[in-house]
């Protein structure tokens, strides 16, 4: 590790990867999706005209654009549909009361398919209100039920990040918020390794490196908390929702703040190295416990993906195009952390020499 610090190539790799994740993360477009539908409430027995707005979509009269409505497990077809522009389509649809009464679900999903965008949907887009509308269309049942759901293509025909409701474009934060915690974890693990080495060898260099790693880990922890608060404000509606992972991360950062304070309070160099090394080994265990174990306990319910018993980053959370930027992002931020650490270690070494 000490030899690795002295080398130069990985700094260039870090710079190149950071440039790559910045460019790829911001320039790759978002996939097609439905953002809204107007109106979003309706009553039985009458035909309504709904305006569906898409984002990055290619609605067209030539590419077989079809719209269905889904409640429970049942699909209903639209009475008619008209493409207004590439991102707007007007659909006529209604639900007869005889059909509505046998479906327990009052929320209807909108499902749209065409040959360019694949299948896109908006979950619980429409709400069926109680009571019938004034104009009653008795032929409605034959129009909307019993239609065939046939599609040519399910996946969009574009190179793009997946479109997720609520997240939208902020899914790009996967490359700027999530790797902060990966980098912090890497820094605290490396720090504890150097603490073990310090306990074995008594070499003050190892203690210096361990403490430098903790400073950089705190940097990443602070960045992770602040960027997370930013993201949470506009997706979960609160900068600090009561989420076990969030509170765990905050406690984890506090543990390492305590490490810095502990080091500051001991003046004797040998004692300081020993005590902080032992504390550091306990700290890394507790940190992993707070970040990974407690949010996964069965009775906790976290907003973060892959919690409560599920491993994070399953195939449902990250698709292959996100991965193409996400894994380089993790490496890039870890290398940046190593770079920061090497600078702090060099300053600390000069400080020790000057004493």
């Amino acid at each position, binding site marked *: 590790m000490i030899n690795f610090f002295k080398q130069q190539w990985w700094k260039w790799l870090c710079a190149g990867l950071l440039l790559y994740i*910045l460019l790829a993360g*911001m320039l790759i477009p978002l996939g097609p999706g439905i953002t809204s539908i107007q109106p979003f409430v309706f009553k039985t027995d009458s035909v309504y005209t709904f305006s569906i707005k898409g984002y990055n979509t290619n609605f067209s009269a030539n590419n077989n654009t079809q719209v269905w409505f889904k409640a429970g497990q049942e699909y209903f077809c639209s009475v008619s549909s008209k493409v207004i522009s590439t991102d707007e389509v007007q659909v006529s649809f209604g639900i007869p009361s005889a059909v509505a009464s046998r479906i327990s679900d009052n929320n209807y999903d909108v499902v749209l398919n065409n040959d360019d965008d694949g299948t896109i949907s908006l979950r619980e887009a429409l709400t069926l209100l109680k009571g019938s509308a004034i104009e009653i269309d008795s032929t409605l049942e034959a129009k909307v039920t019993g239609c065939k759901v046939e599609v040519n293509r399910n996946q969009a025909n574009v190179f793009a990040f997946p479109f997720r409701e609520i997240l939208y*474009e902020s899914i790009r934060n996967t490359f700027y918020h999530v790797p902060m915690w990966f980098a912090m974890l890497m820094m605290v693990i490396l720090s504890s390794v150097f603490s073990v080495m310090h306990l074995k060898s008594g070499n003050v260099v190892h203690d210096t490196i361990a403490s430098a790693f903790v400073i950089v880990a705190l940097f990443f922890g*602070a960045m992770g908390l602040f960027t997370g608060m*930013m993201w949470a404000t506009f997706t979960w509606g609160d900068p600090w929702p009561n989420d076990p992972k969030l509170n765990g991360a905050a406690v984890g950062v506090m543990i390492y703040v305590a490490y810095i304070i502990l080091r500051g309070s001991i003046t004797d160099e040998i004692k300081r190295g020993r005590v902080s090394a032992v504390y550091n080994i306990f700290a890394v265990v507790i940190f992993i416990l707070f970040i990974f174990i407690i949010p996964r306990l069965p009775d906790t319910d976290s907003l973060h993906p892959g919690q409560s018993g599920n491993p994070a980053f399953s195939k449902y959370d990250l698709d292959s195009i996100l991965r193409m930027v996400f894994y380089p992002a993790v490496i890039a931020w870890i290398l940046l952390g190593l770079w920061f650490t090497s*600078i702090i270690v060099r300053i600390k070494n000069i400080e020790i020499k000057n004493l």
Partner: protein
Amino acid sequence: MRKYFSLLLMLVLCNGLFAQNVDAFMRSNQKIYVVTGVLAIILVGIIAFLFFVEKRLKELERK
């Protein structure tokens, strides 16, 4: 110190005054400005780190 405090106070006041507009702005264009905000936070963090390093280097230079 006073400089930092006044800057912080200004930010808090701005946030209070324009909270509604800021909220609408951040949610516009499919929330792309949230990513901008996150990148700005990281940039501020890296610059803060540079100041931290510089402070320690200054002390060494004085010796």
